[in-house]
């Protein structure tokens, strides 16, 4: 009895937002705040009752995901929330903006449809890699409850063990060493324009590609898969810019998140990604696809290393430690952050390309899984964004777009077909019912 009483009077656990997460509640108000979606397509139909059970069991292992967003006087923070997490049926228009009411519950949505389990995350909670750990742990728990064998490891956590405090650390703060601060000087980039989809509809067009084929074509240019996809995408955006009545001199730039866990021994399941923005400057002259491949390749070599990334990280963490910014009340901070985001955030790149890479799975999971899926949510200034993930030999490239025009997506996939890579396309297009 006393134990029960103690439990109810205990102060609620709370967590600070990590450095990258701080911006998301601020931009959320424009209904374009950072969301992303991870899904797993199984071979067998999903049993909702068992999935519900698996979710409840999994969430106990992720106490820092069982939170809601609250406003403090100076900062937003995450407060632990013990309401029952509910699964919901999947929809044709995923990643609907979180409403004010929903923010007060969980910052993720677990959905199911036929053979698919999907989780939509609010970026303040975690990044793609943290989200993938959650999805894999959930899938493993689900499969085990279905009576299948599924091991742990390869990103699927043991739900019978308590959470590790290292999993909830702000790794940015911990690892930025302030040897040097580097803030890349970038001017406003080219932006696609078009007709905005009505009703916050997010148009999703995905292409399924054979990974081995993509790899061999990329290798023939001496570059990695991410660099190859980024190069093709940049080239097509550049061609649209040159032909589409846009300012033909504005830089065309992509934002590519880098998983910084690769460089530090952090176990964190919160945000720990940094963004590098390769691009081309059409003012310098005409570019060929091969030249763009070279530029992207060398840019990635120059930036994706521990020293450069640490300098970037320090530039992000630095302002957060300024006593003046910290003392500013939250509404004022929101105004400042929204302005900063407007000028140096999304306006500096044309589109995002996020590659989670090949997903590895624990023993027993691969037999039950057809593929993983990854989607980026809508963003404020860039109507089209691209998310990439691969499972086995299936490379899935998903474009999510807030506008009706599909020029960029079409040019991208057509270019791949031209290079001899077969593409199978699927979408969430709403076809009118025929009777």
């Amino acid at each position, binding site marked *: 009895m006393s134990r029960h009483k103690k439990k109810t009077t205990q102060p609620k656990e709370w967590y600070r937002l990590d450095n990258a997460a701080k911006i998301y509640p601020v931009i959320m108000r424009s209904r374009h705040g950072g969301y992303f979606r991870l899904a797993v397509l199984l071979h067998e139909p999903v049993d909702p009752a068992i999935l519900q059970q698996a979710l409840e069991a999994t969430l106990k292992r992720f106490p820092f995901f069982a939170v809601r967003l609250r406003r403090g006087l100076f900062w937003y923070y995450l407060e632990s929330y013990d309401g029952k997490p509910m699964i919901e049926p999947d929809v*044709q228009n*995923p990643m609907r903006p979180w*409403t004010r009411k929903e923010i007060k519950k969980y910052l993720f949505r677990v959905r199911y*449809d036929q053979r698919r389990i999907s989780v939509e995350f609010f970026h303040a909670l975690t990044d793609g890699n943290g989200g993938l750990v959650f999805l894999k742990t959930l899938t493993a728990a689900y499969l085990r409850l279905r009576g299948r064998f599924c091991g742990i490891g390869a990103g699927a956590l043991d739900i019978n063990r308590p959470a590790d405090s290292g999993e909830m650390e702000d790794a940015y703060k911990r690892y930025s060493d302030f040897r040097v601060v580097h803030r890349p000087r970038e001017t406003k980039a080219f932006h696609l324009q078009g007709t905005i989809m009505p009703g*916050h509809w997010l148009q*999703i*067009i*995905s292409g399924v590609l054979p990974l081995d084929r993509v790899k061999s074509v990329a290798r023939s240019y001496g570059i990695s898969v991410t660099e190859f996809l980024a190069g093709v995408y940049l080239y097509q955006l550049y061609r649209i810019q040159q032909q589409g009545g846009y300012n033909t001199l504005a830089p065309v730039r992509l934002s590519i998140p880098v998983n910084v866990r690769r460089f530090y021994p952090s176990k964190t399941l919160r945000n720990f990604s940094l963004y590098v923005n390769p691009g081309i400057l059409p003012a310098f002259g005409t570019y060929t696809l091969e030249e763009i491949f070279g530029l992207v390749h060398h840019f990635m070599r120059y930036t994706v290393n521990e020293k450069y990334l640490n300098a970037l990280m320090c530039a992000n963490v630095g302002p957060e430690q300024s006593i003046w910014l910290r003392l500013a009340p939250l509404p004022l901070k929101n105004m400042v952050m929204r302005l900063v985001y407007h000028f140096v955030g999304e306006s500096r790149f044309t589109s995002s390309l996020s590659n989670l890479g090949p997903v590895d799975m624990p023993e027993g999971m691969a037999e039950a899984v057809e593929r993983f899926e990854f989607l980026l949510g809508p963003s404020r200034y860039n109507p089209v964004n691209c998310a990439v993930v691969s499972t086995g030999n299936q490379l899935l490239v998903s474009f999510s777009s807030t506008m009706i025009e599909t020029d960029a997506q079409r040019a991208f*996939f057509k270019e791949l077909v031209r290079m001899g890579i077969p593409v199978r396309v*699927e979408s969430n297009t709403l076809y009118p019912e025929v009777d």
Partner: protein
Amino acid sequence: MSYCVNCGVELDRSEKACPLCGVEVLNPRQPYDDQAPRPYPKRLDPIYARINRRFTAAILSIAAAFPAVLCLAINFILDGGLTWSFYVAGALAVVWVFVVPYFLYAKPTILKIFLPDVLAVSLYLLLISKLQADGSWFLTLAMPMVILTCGLILLNIVLIDAGTIYGFAIPASILISAGILTVGVELIINLELIGRLQLGWSLYVLIPTLAVAAFFLTVARRQSIREEIRKRLHL
């Protein structure tokens, strides 16, 4: 397996048309199957955007109604009747008409927003004229001015919105309208005060606005002037 003849990509069984270009799939061997497994089910997630706008409209209405009711009450208690509080309540009603319709329409158009504003201003002026002993100025001064001003604004908005006026012609059109408005205002005032149409000070406004407008129009037409000269004088 169906391929888009336009894009060269293979289409998933669930696609009725190519999502990239909209060209419909016409494969006699494999017609579109409505029952094919879809990557996203047909269920739609409701969007709450409208509700939030309505909520904002409700909040604004309450914020406007509260001081209005308060003033009417104070006026009634202190003076035993409603006198000055009508000015306050009327002004708040005008503000309400200016702001709230914007939140009520899903697709606000110029006419839907602008015409209620004109009506509200006219009614407010009528209210003031009725509250005064001699309210004859409403018909002779207020209404002509409201009609003239709103007519000019509406004309500009419609022409700019339709793309008839664009680029440097926009400031020219606004300046010409301002000039006409000044002249019109003086004529209306003179008709009321001295009983005849006479022009004086407004010409000092009209002439500079026309001069600057002419400059803008020349700049706007520069391209076409050059073309015209080339066409007629080419060797």
